[in-house]
Structures are given as C-alpha cells and as structure tokens.
C-alpha cells in the first residue's frame, strides 16, 4: 500500500516533468516538436527497436543496448548514494569515488595487464578507500560528509589526472586520452556472455555486457542486506537516530565508516563496469569537470525512492531519456532538454512525501466507511 503510493507519486513526477518538456519543445519549434523532438525523446531506443529499417539492418536493439550500457554506471552510483542515504549520509562524493574507481580499473587493465575481475576488484577497492575517508572524518572528527566529499572529489580528480598523464602505459599521447582497454588488454574486458548468451551480440552494442547483470544482482544484494540482515538493521537505526543506535550498543562510528566504504565501493564498481566495457576513454587532460555519473547517481537514487530496486528502474529511465535527448534533431532541439526534464523530476520528487500524504488521504477517504463499521463492531 505505502509502496504503491510512493510509486504512483514517482510516476506523477515523471509525467509532470515530461509534460513540461513537451511544452518547452513546443516553445522552441511548434511544428516539429512532436515528430523530431518529443517522440524520439521519450521513445528513445524503443523507436528503433521496432523500426523496419533498423530491423532489416539487424541493428534494431543497438540503441537499447546503448541505454543499458549507459545505465550500468549510474545504477551503481545511484545505489552508492542510496546506500549512504539509508545511513543518513549524503554521499555527494560518488563522483570522486567513481574517479578513483576508474583509475583503479584502468591502472590494472593498462599497466598491470590484469584480467577483468582483478581490475573490477581494484576499482571497487579504490572507490571504497575514497569513500572511507569522508567516513573516517565524519566518525572521528564529526566533519560534515558533504563538505569533505566535495573536497575529496576534486583532490581525487586532480590526483588521478596527474598520475595518469605521467604514465606512458595509461596515457595515449597520440590521442591525448587514456588508452582503450579493449585495444590494450582484451582480458580486462568484462565478459560479453553468460550461460552461452552473448549479450553484446544480442544488442549489437559492444559495451553492453554482463555488467548489467552484475548491477542488478548487486542491487538485489543491497536490498537484502538493508532489509533482512542485522547489518542493515543497524545501519538504518544509525540513519534514523544515531544516539539511539549508540545506546543500543551499535557502534555508530564503525557503521558510518562501513556505510561510506560500501557506498564508495559501489561507485567504484560502477566506474569499473563502465571503463572495462571496451572503448570508453578517460580524458586525464580535462580537470574542469567531475564525472557526471557521480551526480547522476543522486538523481537515480532520489528518483528510485532510495530503494535499490528503484535505482535499477530510475537508472534505466534516466539513461533512456538522455539517449532520447541525443536522438532529437540536434540542429533544432538541444539535447540538454532531457537533463532539464530529469532535474525537474527530481525537484518534484522532493515534494513526494507531501504528495504521498495527500494520496494516502485520498485512498483512505474511500476506505473510511469500512473502517468505521469495524469500530462499531468493537
């Protein structure tokens, strides 16, 4: 019941956001707003999946594959943010942990020539370490994690870029970017097939691989950990009421650190999934912007109602409309409209507690009569 209402309110947010997007497209160019703007935007990969031209070429699932590939890292950063949220921590540092994760994966893949699982482990580890730092600072020195995360994001980015630039095995100076994992070390690529099913081939998109299965499995594990285990119980208790948790003998310092470590590990893992998918290249020369996946994680977590399974769907949704954004006619409609819509949706999500309250009342008004009868019977 409660969950149902939460989902309904999320859907309302999404619809309002999309409606707003449509209005905007109409303002920009009323004539083509549907056919060249809104329809590719919201259909995105689906429009090609059933297009006879694409089917004929055998590439009809490619765009869906791209959506999935792009969703993998943001589902993970979404999980990262959501997990910390449960502990009452706002992990705005997912971007930095993601950066370190990317570095770990690339270092193992390009320099040490390790196989993929080692690279993935390294990504996870480095992400975890970078998440641990704000955790330590929070637990022992009571430094607000938002601030330390912001600082560590930039320290991480500058540090990683400095190291990468100076390492010949990582930095491909003829392309001014990091080497592609798929070119240098094929063994570091995340496998394409599972149980004989070759995911990349199905989708005709090389970067779509078993990573998405990892992401889903991890989301389920996180769900179980949070809701079924003593660790999850402790964590949420700390998140709701730190003092009570301490009173109950729960080691809140340990839990803060652990939560941040796991949160960082998830972000790092996400970076691993993305950078070990084949052809993505890190650009160590660019120190002006943190990886967007980190901040998308916040969006994913919020839209997913801070629920691990919700994160899967919201991650796919956000990836869906951002691919859609690039499928609009670019010379008329800026692709950032999709970003604008997600921003709006998250803004509306902030109201969702109130909306849920209203919705609950609406439902209860229906039930009222039944309820009163019960009372009289008592």
């Amino acid at each position: 019941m409660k969950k149902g209402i939460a989902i309904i309110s999320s859907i309302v947010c999404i619809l309002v956001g999309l409606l707003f997007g449509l209005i905007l497209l109409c303002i920009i160019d009323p004539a083509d707003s549907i056919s060249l703007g809104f329809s590719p935007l919201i259909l995105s990969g689906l429009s090609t999946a059933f297009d006879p031209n694409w089917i004929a070429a055998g590439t009809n699932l490619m765009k869906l594959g791209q959506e999935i590939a792009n969703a993998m890292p943001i589902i993970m950063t979404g999980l990262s943010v959501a997990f910390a949220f449960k502990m009452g921590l706002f992990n705005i540092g997912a971007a930095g942990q993601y950066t370190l994760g990317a570095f770990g994966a690339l270092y193992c893949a390009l320099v040490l020539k390790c196989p993929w699982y080692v690279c993935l482990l390294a990504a996870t580890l480095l992400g975890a370490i970078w998440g641990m730092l704000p955790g330590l600072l929070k637990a022992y020195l009571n430094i607000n994690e938002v601030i330390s995360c912001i600082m560590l994001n930039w320290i991480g980015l500058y540090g990683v870029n400095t190291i990468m630039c100076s390492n010949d095995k990582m930095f491909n100076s003829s392309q001014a970017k990091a080497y592609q994992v798929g070119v240098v070390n094929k063994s570091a690529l995340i496998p394409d097939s599972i149980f004989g099913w070759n995911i990349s081939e199905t989708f005709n998109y090389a970067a779509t691989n078993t990573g998405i299965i990892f992401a889903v499995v991890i989301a389920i594990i996180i769900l179980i950990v949070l809701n079924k285990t003593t660790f999850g119980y402790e964590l949420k208790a700390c998140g709701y009421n730190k003092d009570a948790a301490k009173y109950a003998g729960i080691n809140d310092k340990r839990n803060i650190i652990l939560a941040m470590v796991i949160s960082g590990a998830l972000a790092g893992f996400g970076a691993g999934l993305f950078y070990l998918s084949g052809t993505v290249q890190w650009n160590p020369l660019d120190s002006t912007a943190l990886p967007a996946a980190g901040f998308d994680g916040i969006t994913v977590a919020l839209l997913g109602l801070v629920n691990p399974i919700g994160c899967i769907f919201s991650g796919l949704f956000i990836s869906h409309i951002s691919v859609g954004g690039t499928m609009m006619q670019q010379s008329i409609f800026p692709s950032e409209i999709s970003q604008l819509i997600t921003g709006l949706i998250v803004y509306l999500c902030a109201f969702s507690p109130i909306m849920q309250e209203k919705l609950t009342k609406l439902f209860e008004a229906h039930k009222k009569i039944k309820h009163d009868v019960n009372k009289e019977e008592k």
Partner: protein
Amino acid sequence: MADYVIEMLGISKYFPGIKANDNITLQLKRGEIHALLGENGAGKSTLMSILFGLYQPDEGVIKKDGKVVKINNPNDANDLRIGMVHQHFKLVECYSVLDNIILGVEPNVAGILQKQEARSKIMELSEKYGLQIDPDAIVENITVGMQQRVEILKMLYRDNDVLIFDEPTAVLTPQEITELMSIMKKLATEGKSILFISHKLAEIMTVADRCSVLRKGKYIGTVDIKDTTAEGLSTMMVGRKVNLKLEKKEATPGEVILDVNNLTVASNSSKKDAVKNVSFNVKRGEIVCIAGIEGNGQAELIQAITGLSKQKKGKLTLCDKDISHESIRYRSEHGMSHIPEDRHKHGLVLDYNLAQNIVLQRYREPEFSKFGFIKFDAVKKYAEKLIQKFDVRCGQGAETIVRSMSGGNQQKAIIAREIDKNPELLITVQPTRGLDVGAIEYIHKAILEQRDSGKAILLVSLELDEVMNLSDRILVMYEGELVGEFKSSEVDTETLGLYMTGAKRDNITKEATK
C-alpha cells in the same frame, strides 16, 4: 463580569485524529493565580497556546476585559498584554540574555538595534522583582533556573499583565520553586493575573487561588483551593481515586551488583570534570537513588556507567566483572539495562516500528537472528508478547511506527524492553518525567516489582517526591561529588534540599557506603 481579565468560552481545537480541547471554558479573575490541572495530553498546553495565539481555536471565543478579541499570533497576544512562559523554554541558546528578552520587541531606530535603552529597563525590572540575571551571559551557559527568570523577564519586559506559566516548576529545585512561588505571589499582588499549569498538587495547593481541571480535552470544573484538598484535585483529574503514596516493603539488600570506584568523568560542555572521584555501589534487591539538581554530573555519571561516554579514571565492576573499558553492548549483554532520560533521543528509533524497537539491543541474539539475517517472525511474536504483558497501547500492534505513539506508551515500551531483558542491574533515569499520575503509578510499581524480584536498581531523579517514594538509599550529588548518603526512611525533603544546593555536605568515603 468585568472582573474577569480573560474569558475563554466554549473553546474547541481539533488536531488530526484527536480533539485536544472540547468546549472548554476558562475564566481568569484579575489579580488571581489560577491553576490548570490535568493528565498528560489533557489539552492544557493546547488551551494556553490558543490564548497566546500560537494556535487558532476551531470553535469558541476569547474575551479580554469583557471584549471579544481575536488572537492570531503572539504579536496580537502581546498587544493584549498576554505573556507566556512555555513548558519547553523558548530561548535562543547562542544569544545573550539581553537579546533573548528583547527578541521581537527590540527598541530600534530604522531597524538598527538600540540595546542600551533595553538594558536599563531590564535591570530595573530585575531589581524590582528580585529576578537576578546577567544580561550579557549567553543563554547556553546559564542554569535552568536563570533561564526561567529570563523567560519571566521576557513577559515583564513586554508589560504583560496576564501571565501564563506552563509547567514552570518541572525543571526547578525545591529552593528555586519556593523562590518562584514568592515571585508569582508578588506579581499577583501587583495586579497581574496568572495562569499556572502544574502536575504537582502541592504547588497548586500552596500558590493558587482557584484551579480548573481538564480531562481528555474536556472541562471538568473549577474549584476554590481553600475548599479542596490534594486528593480531591487528583480525583477530579483522573476520574478515580489515586494512591499518591506508594506501598512498599522494606528492602533486603543482597550482594553487590554494581561497584563504582573512584570514577572521574569529563564534562560534555565545559572543561571541568563533571564527575569527580565518585565511589558507591548498588546491591541486589535495593533501589539506590542519585538525587541532585540537574547539571551536577548525574547525566555524565550514568553515561559513563552505561558506556555512552568514556570515563577518565576509575573502575566499574558489574557482577564481579571489570567493565571499565567494555563496550555498551558488552555491558548490556552482561546484565545491565538502561531506561534513558531522553526517550526520543536515546531510547527509541522513532521511525522503526514497535517490534524493531523492542529488540533494539537484542537483534543479534540467536533467538532473533541467524547467520546475520534477522528472524522477523520471531521478533514480531516476541514484541506481541511484550505488548500484551506490559499493556502497551498502540494502533497497529507490533507494526506501529513508534513515532505515532503517545509519550506514555513509548515509555512503557522502553520499560517493557528493559525489564524483559531480565537484567541484574536496572538503571533508570527520570523514568516518569512529564508523565501523568496514572502512568507514574504504573511505572513505580513496575520498578518496585523488579527490586522485589532481586534486581539491583539505580535510579536518577530530579523529583524529590519520586526519590522519597521509591528509593531505599539516597546519594546526593553536588558539583560532581557525592555529598551525602541517607536511608530514605531517615531523611526529609528539606534536608535533601540543603545537600542538593551545597549548603551542607558530608564526607562520603567508599568505606561508608559498604
């Protein structure tokens, strides 16, 4: 008619799911002290908040000096010269006393503060009524008593002539209470009219002229104090006769359960040590009470014993095991239960349901978990058992979100949890703070039962009545030291008061307590 300053006629106020005030009438005479009595949740604070403009009544009218008035916000109340000292002080902690007093009615020129003017007026008032304050002290550094004086000055500074005191004595020492009573009387003789809320019948009996009683949001009646007794009032309040005096058998102390040896604890707030070299013990089958004025180190002492904070020096022994450096969990698993002072801060995770709160310390026990997974069925069953046994009232049984429960029932849930752990030592701090007489009676009985079944009980209370009623042995704490030890049967409240304020002290040595 016109000798009523304030008339609240037919006032009703609804809150979601509850009618907090139901057609209440209250008439306040000029120059009287009018007490307002009622159980917890009877609607006293709500009624007063309506008079002060914090809430709007859903029905009914308010008259001031016979004229109907509309009080939309505290500013309107202020214009009508109505002032209020709130149950929970409304002071900005990081502001100075002066800033707090003038807040909202600052003398200013074009928005720029003119504090000098205010200062002289405040000093004048403070002298006139004997309300000693330091205008430049920061509120977070001053005592509760002084904070109360600041609240009173706030009203006087605004030239109010209807003064509302919502449970002003709950946090004061006996000496401060006496002082407050005389101030109130003085104000009344000057023609100010006072509304006075208290759960303490004795106070009402001494200071009030008349008393109105509320029960479950309804108006029961108004009586002249000189025509009634404390028992009469309490009967009016709860609707039945209440046993104000607890019946208890003589204690039969057994072996030592908790032994505190030369304990020193640093303070939470200041640089000085809060607990200085304290030694005592608690034996099986007795209730030992630490009495004292708030802020004399009791909180820190309990935090150190329970492990919530670290001690600086000293040794703690629980059932012959040295627990000085053990974790909270170790202490809890080895026979220590703790009913904390602040149930919302420490005692409960308000957003967890009742079942989850019931196993707050025990979720790891094999009974409730396996391989790190919680056995939710077992937890629920256990919670339901306790709900039955301790008569915890809650809407949806074990699944009730604790936040939605009333304070009294929240407290019951904590007590159920702590007692059912079957501890060797039960530490309880202010177990009845803010509860009504009915609930107090229940809790006191439960504690006594524990004693009689051979548990050691360490009680911290600021309420002298509770201390006298419940304990077998009383230790008085003053400025972090134990300054007196008494058998409860051999001491009276006056003597305790003298020790608590530091006017008298004995030398307590470890040996003496043995």
